């Protein structure tokens, strides 16, 4: 075939980074991952959780937690999804989520949104009074007590729960269950369609 070989051809300078983003070559932009809280209203019907979690897994989004529960409308459920991604990944996750047919609307919540997580922590029952004292320090309470175990409920932000779990380690933690975050926007804003 005629024509110059590859090394004889004219080439432009190029102004794209490895993500295909056009950049100023002097100051190449790299996107550091950040945490984002996505809140999604979805149709409350069988299989919807599998559809959404499947989307996150097959598109390789780094998911931190996912919680789901009904809303006041019995046909609608609400999901809170924490992801840690660079900016384009967060944008892509929102759009892909919005594309799913059972998804009514998707919003990324502001960092100051109300975020709460629930943990149940089962510890040894030797020092129930001490356990109770620690629980109170974290605004929690004992919800079950037996001769050899106490189960404590703590609600709050992720760092607070992390700290609580750490504090309970002195009592021989036997089991922990955590829900992952549920979150709502502060103020009067709600997640309606076409917002």
């Amino acid at each position, binding site marked *: *075939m*005629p*024509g*110059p*070989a*590859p*090394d004889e*051809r*004219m*080439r*432009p*300078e*190029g*102004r*794209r*980074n*490895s*993500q*295909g*983003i*056009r950049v100023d070559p002097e100051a190449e932009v790299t996107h550091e991952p950040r945490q984002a809280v996505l809140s999604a209203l979805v*149709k409350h019907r*069988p*299989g919807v959780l*599998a*559809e959404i979690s*499947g*989307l996150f897994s*097959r598109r390789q989004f780094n998911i931190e937690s996912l919680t789901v529960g009904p809303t006041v409308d019995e046909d609608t459920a609400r999901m809170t999804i924490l992801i840690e991604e660079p900016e*384009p990944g967060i*944008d*892509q996750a929102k*759009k*892909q989520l*919005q*594309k799913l*047919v*059972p*998804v*009514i609307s998707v919003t990324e919540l502001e960092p100051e949104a109300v975020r709460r997580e629930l943990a149940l922590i089962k510890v040894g029952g030797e020092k129930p009074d001490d356990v109770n004292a620690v629980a109170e320090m974290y605004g929690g309470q004992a919800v079950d007590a037996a001769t050899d175990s106490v189960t404590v409920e703590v609600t709050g932000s992720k760092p607070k729960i992390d700290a609580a779990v750490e504090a309970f380690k002195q009592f021989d933690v036997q089991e922990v269950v955590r829900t992952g975050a549920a979150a709502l926007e502060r103020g009067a804003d709600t997640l309606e369609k076409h917002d």
Partner: protein
Amino acid sequence: MSERASVPKEDQTETEQDDDREPITTGAQSVIRALENAGTDYVFGVQGGAIMPVYDALYDSDITHVTMAHEQGASHAADAYGVVTGDPGVCFATSGPGATNLVTGIADASMDSDPMIALTGQVPTDFVGNDAFQETDTVGITQPITKESYFAGDSDTVGDNVSEAFALAASGRQGPTLVDLPKDVTQGETDREPMAPTTPDTYDVPEEADDTDVQEAVEALADAERPVILAGGGVIKADASPALREFATEYEIPVITTMPGIGSFPEDHELSLEWAGMHGTGYANLAITNTDCMLAIGTRFDDRLTGGVDSFAPDAEIIHVDIDPAEISKNIYADYPLIGDAKMVLRQLYDAMPRAPDADEWRERCQDWKSEYPMTYEMPDDEPLKPQYIVETFSEVTDDDTIVCTGVGQHQMWASQFWEFTEPRTWVSSHGLGTMGYGAPAAIGAKLAAPDQEVVCFDGDGSFLMTVQELIVAVREQLDITYVVLNNEAVGMVRQWQDGFYEGRRMASEYPWIPQFDKLAEAFGARGFRLEDEADVEDTIQAAREYDGPAVIDAIIDPAENVFPMVPSGGDNGLFALEESHLEML
């Protein structure tokens, strides 16, 4: 020039108002009624236990059922039917293996955004989850490869599910949908008429792009010195080819297509640079590399098109028109995103464009590249038959509206490179999924979709063998299709990569034990031809075309022939190799 290659469809309202039809008594009947209401003429499928009630209801319908040899064939035929007509092709399969056999075709349709609806039988609802005979979780399996998969749980609403799935497949960014039909639901009693085809209320289809965004985009385009239009499959899907032609010729902007976009712009037009990507033309790839402003319409910037993203159109500002917001900045950052229907946005752009870009010099340079890197091949006298020559010869003797189907492999690339496409919906191929075996059943779907148009299928020996059993369908239905097997006794594309990138270690890529396809064709009841000499090419093609029914030309081609130009995977489009030795430089 016909925008849509199919025969015109009957007026839909007529069917809906047809009150002479028998009242519905079962879920299965409402399934069929929903298909009738949506205007279905053909269904491709294979019978089986769990889907039997639906087939029984089909017995009384005017919808024509085409029994395929394998469910994979049904899904590819339905896909091709959808590509050619623009309306969803329909395929049926039973539960379990029937449904799983459809999966390849569904995934193929999903990757290429082809409108298609699959209806699968399922074990009765009481048995679901018990690992019953021929049970699989069809909804679970297909969810990632459909726009939506429905589990129909109720005889009263099963028709609504089918109507919605049909509408969803056809609207917005098109794609496959599936409805899983438990046997007790289709057998169950109901007198409900299915609703009219309507998309779900959560599904929004954008139409026109934002006017301010359009204004900003046209200003960037008008200011460009080296503008190009990149037209993807979405242009064809949106029936936007005439709008594209109008826009490009009015503002004199060179047009490159993607491979699925082949046919969206006439390749014989002087502004056409044909198609870009891994095996696209040198001039298209050079134009992409050197453009300063690209208007990309209906393309998802697949890696076979872009090569490495950092070297893709490195100097260009990108205006990206797409109906799917999720495609914006997914692979290539869009400086000017325009979300909307390609046809409508092209009209907006046309009206808003302040002036044609001042690009005489650029157009000249593109023409120079055309003469510098022409699509050619060597054909010495004593060499074996060249595949490119066969494609080129065939292209010259047929009409513009001839539909070309292919399998996947080297033959697919030669067909796309050396056939001259001028009309939309005449190129039917498997792009995103790259499904070997797509060609033979796709040609059946295409021929039934457009019975008045000539249909030719280029296949490779490896690809053809994967679905060769579908020949029996072409014979039974007396379909006038010409199959050309470009036979190099190998999975040629794999062998080419092994030679180029694996030191010629041809592990499992050579097929010296293939059958004689002309004799195989005769065994199926088709007409077989064997082609070995250059001198016989034209006569053999004519003889096969003249035969009224499926004909198979077993063309024994030069096994040393490889596909060039080539951009290595993840490479730089501007640095395409023109021959084997160039690969070492890259």
